[in-house]
């Protein structure tokens, strides 16, 4: 993956084309219809985004069929997809799985897996988080046998392969598992986020293909990219929530005037704006970090996630408050955002845990 290869103006143009596309392809009615269908995938929107707009391959080098770009460009796509609440596996397949493979440095794996990810024809799910009280192991039998349970596996139900992090006798390893391999049990979870289903995935001696060697550093970098990516989503959703709140404050009348004329509401909206602008600056700074400079990458990722994970939920909650009773109804879009915001908040660490790591970097704790 490269650092930003485009100019700010080019990224603005790219944003406009993604937004245009999603405004038509993934309006709220469509999002709700896909949610109700239970498939967990808006297949036509995914095809349009992934193949036609080339979004799935942004982080993949051109020689493997991708666009050869970096996080600055992917952040734009993540912001826009989250803003539209698109039911697509952009984060799990095109960011986490795509980067996990590349962070192994295993050229054979690149050739084998990246082209399918690049055009979105293949969807992979990243299984990184061990379920409560479990620890996924890889045993060196006649093949690598995986044992353990992963939780919160995004888009597990639509993935054809899993990328599984597991402990090996010689450190952490990354394994590719075919979705229909023996001993894989996918149990859909009653996930808070209705636009991005998760599952509990259990491996009972499942055969995995190890790619690359020790994945300890790779996993650390992947977590940092995950923090930047979820922050970009949080920014995209916060921006939209602010617009929805401001529009409502302009038109909803109580006590004979628009509620936005009341300072209590006006100040809440102004604070939303301040937080959104701050998130925008933070995401821009983090997504422009040179990926090779891992110390800067880890630190910037903690800063951006600590900020966005704290204030995006604030914006989502404030949106419901500004709307009053209507904001508490299932029909209003606010809760669809709140659910995805709260999920992104905890993925790769919430604000408190990011600050905890920052305290170590800053020498405040041992």
């Amino acid at each position, binding site marked *: 993956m490269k650092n930003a290869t485009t100019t700010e103006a080019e990224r603005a143009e790219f944003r406009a084309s993604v937004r245009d596309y999603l405004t038509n392809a993934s309006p709220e009615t469509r999002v709700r219809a896909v949610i109700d269908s239970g498939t967990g995938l808006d297949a036509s929107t995914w095809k349009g985004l992934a193949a036609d707009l080339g979004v799935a391959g942004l982080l993949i080098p051109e020689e493997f069929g991708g666009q050869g770009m970096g996080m600055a460009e992917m952040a734009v796509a993540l912001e826009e997809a989250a803003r539209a609440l698109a039911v697509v596996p952009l984060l799990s397949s095109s960011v986490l799985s795509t980067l996990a493979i590349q962070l192994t440095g295993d050229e054979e794996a690149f050739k084998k897996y990246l082209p399918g990810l690049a055009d979105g024809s293949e969807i992979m799910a990243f299984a990184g988080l061990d379920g409560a009280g479990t620890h996924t192991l890889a045993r060196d039998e006649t093949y690598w046998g995986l044992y353990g349970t992963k939780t919160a596996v995004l888009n597990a139900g639509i993935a054809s392969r899993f990328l599984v992090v597991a402990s090996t006798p010689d450190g952490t390893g990354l394994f590719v598992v075919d979705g229909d391999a023996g001993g894989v049990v996918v149990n859909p979870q009653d996930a808070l986020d209705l636009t991005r289903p998760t599952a509990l995935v259990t491996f009972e001696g499942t055969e995995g293909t190890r790619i690359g060697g020790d994945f300890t550093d790779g996993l650390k970098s992947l977590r940092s990219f995950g923090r930047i990516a979820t922050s970009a989503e949080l920014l995209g959703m916060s921006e939209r929530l602010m617009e929805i709140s*401001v529009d409502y*404050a*302009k038109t909803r009348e109580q006590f004979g*005037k*628009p509620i*936005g*004329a*009341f*300072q209590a*509401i*006006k*100040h809440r*909206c*102004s*604070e939303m*704006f*301040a937080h959104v*602008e*701050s*998130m925008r*600056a*933070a995401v*821009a*700074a983090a997504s422009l970090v040179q990926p090779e400079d891992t110390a800067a990458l880890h630190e910037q990722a903690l*800063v*951006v996630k*600590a*900020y966005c994970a*704290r204030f995006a939920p604030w914006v989502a909650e404030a949106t419901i408050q500004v709307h009053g009773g209507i904001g508490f109804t299932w029909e209003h879009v606010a809760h669809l955002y709140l659910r995805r915001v709260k999920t992104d908040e905890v993925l790769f660490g919430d604000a*408190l845990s*990011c*600050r*905890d790591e*920052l*305290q170590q970097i*800053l*020498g*405040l*704790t041992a």
Partner: protein
Amino acid sequence: MDDLLAELRTWLGDALPKWKAKWNGDTSWDALCDWQRMMAEGKWATASWPLKYGGRGLGTMDVLAIEDVVAASGAPQIPGMIGLKNVAPTLMKFGNEEQQKSVARIGSTDEVWCQGFSEPGAGSDLASLRTRAVIDGDEFVINGQKVWTSNGMHASHMQLLARTDPDAPKHKGISAITLSMKTPGVEVRPIKQINGGAEFAEVFFTDVRVPVANLLGPLHEGWMVTMTTLGHERAGVAVFAGRLEQRIRGLIEEVAKRDVRVSPVVSDELAEMYVEARVLGAMARQMLNKIAQGGTPGSEQSVIKMVWSELSQRVDTVVMGLAGIEGVTGENNSATLGYLSARSATIAAGTSDIVKNIIGDRVLGLPRD
């Protein structure tokens, strides 16, 4: 820009020791004015001014770089900032021949200017000011009161905003007028602040007569005249943001070096401030880049001002907390003074509450009350 900064460093290496030797630790008003005089002679204090006024005609980014180098050298604060940054550019743009003679004297501190803007009844709502200037023949007759006048105790001259047409809507009918603080009927009293200092004055006007030729810019257009040049300070808020980021890094380094660990709650508060300072710094750098590329800062300036003021206030509150009992016994005077002084951060140059109104009204287009 590298050549320019190298020239500046060489100049500072020569001038600063000379000044220090001459004043020997004295940081009185006269000593500071002497430093400004040297800085103006070197064309560093006046770097943003056009060549014909004795400046270097430099743009915002160059001037900010100069200010950073000067601050890092340990040079003292320049006392006549209001004159250099606000009044002189206004005089250059709107002043008549006589008024423009003051520009050079502002650089050298032969004249020290203040701005008579705020009034007891016109703080954040500056346009509701009531000090009157009535034309009587070829003179203005001025009556009223100004308050929170920075440098008022030291000033030789004032750029005054007074109401010249009481029947016009409040932003109209205001005129800008220049006058000497020695004009009969002008009385200046210091305002003692909660931190014990007196950086501001109240100024009273009783039948003060000045020539109509002292009008600055068109009659009744004082609001426009003033707002045009307030824009010169726009990039300044980004500099404050950068300095706050440095300050928080410094505070954390200091705390991390202590033998006794602070409580986890304080440690988290420091990390939280660090996060917000880093984000603020990123926002400020992006605004400066925009200016460097010829853009005009918009709403981000209000956001930076609001975030900066609230965060810098929080830092002083935490420093006060870290001082513990010594913060209230006078044993840690810098923490106490910092805490008291920081109360003004969310008041000066528009209270945070008003900034939120401005963002709501002008940026988000929410209905006015």
